[in-house]
């Protein structure tokens, strides 16, 4: 396949446009699996997430994860978009779109990519509450930290 499309930006993305872009590349695509990660409102307590990232490394690390995925599964297209900055409940945070001839590769690639991305891509979330306070930085889940340690044997 062509190079994966990797974008790190503040602006929102357009799923329909990304879908056309990925399926327009090749008429032998049978399956496209799309993961959209959204900002939850946490039962009305969350006003916004502020997402900090490491410019340069964010793109580079997503590129390394994409290369790993493309080595494991045969895809006909792969797009990864991660937003940063202030994001409100209901808004998009991340998009992963994997296209393949048969559906298993696209499902497995998208799912693996999200697991891997969460553990290695340099992004951090801070929560702003509807009360006007900051709840502070989201803590990494233990299982995500353990997955990272297995990858990097820290």
């Amino acid at each position, binding site marked *: 396949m062509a190079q994966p499309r990797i974008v790190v930006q503040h602006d929102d993305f357009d799923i329909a446009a990304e879908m056309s872009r990925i399926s327009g590349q090749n008429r032998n695509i049978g399956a496209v699996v799309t993961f959209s990660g959204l900002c939850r409102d946490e039962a009305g307590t969350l006003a916004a997430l502020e997402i900090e*990232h490491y410019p340069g490394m964010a793109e580079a690390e997503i590129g390394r994860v994409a290369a790993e995925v493309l080595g494991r599964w045969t895809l006909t297209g792969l797009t990864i978009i*991660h937003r940063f900055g202030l994001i409100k409940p209901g808004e998009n945070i*991340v998009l992963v779109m994997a296209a393949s001839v048969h559906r298993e590769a696209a499902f497995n690639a998208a799912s693996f990519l*999200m697991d891997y991305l969460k553990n*290695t891509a340099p992004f*951090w979330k801070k929560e702003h509450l509807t009360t006007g306070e900051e709840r502070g930085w989201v803590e990494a889940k233990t299982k995500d930290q353990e997955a990272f340690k297995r990858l990097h044997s820290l």
Partner: protein
Amino acid sequence: MTKLVYFAWVRERIGKGEEVIELDPAIVTVGDLLAHLKTRGEEYAAALEYENVIRVAINQEHVEHDAPIKGATEIALFPPMTGG
């Protein structure tokens, strides 16, 4: 001279996003660097208190704490990632 960059609560506790410092040749590994930084003041000691949760990247690639820092032009310190 080496550029150090900090993110999320490491950045907030240290009180700056980046700085350029001269590193003593005795500082060989990432672990040595962390130990050295903790001696630079209370804010560094607070930021790096739980040293083993601190993630480190050299020239924008994750490295382990026993990695050598030789050749590093940019060393980043940050908490576990919470993107996705």
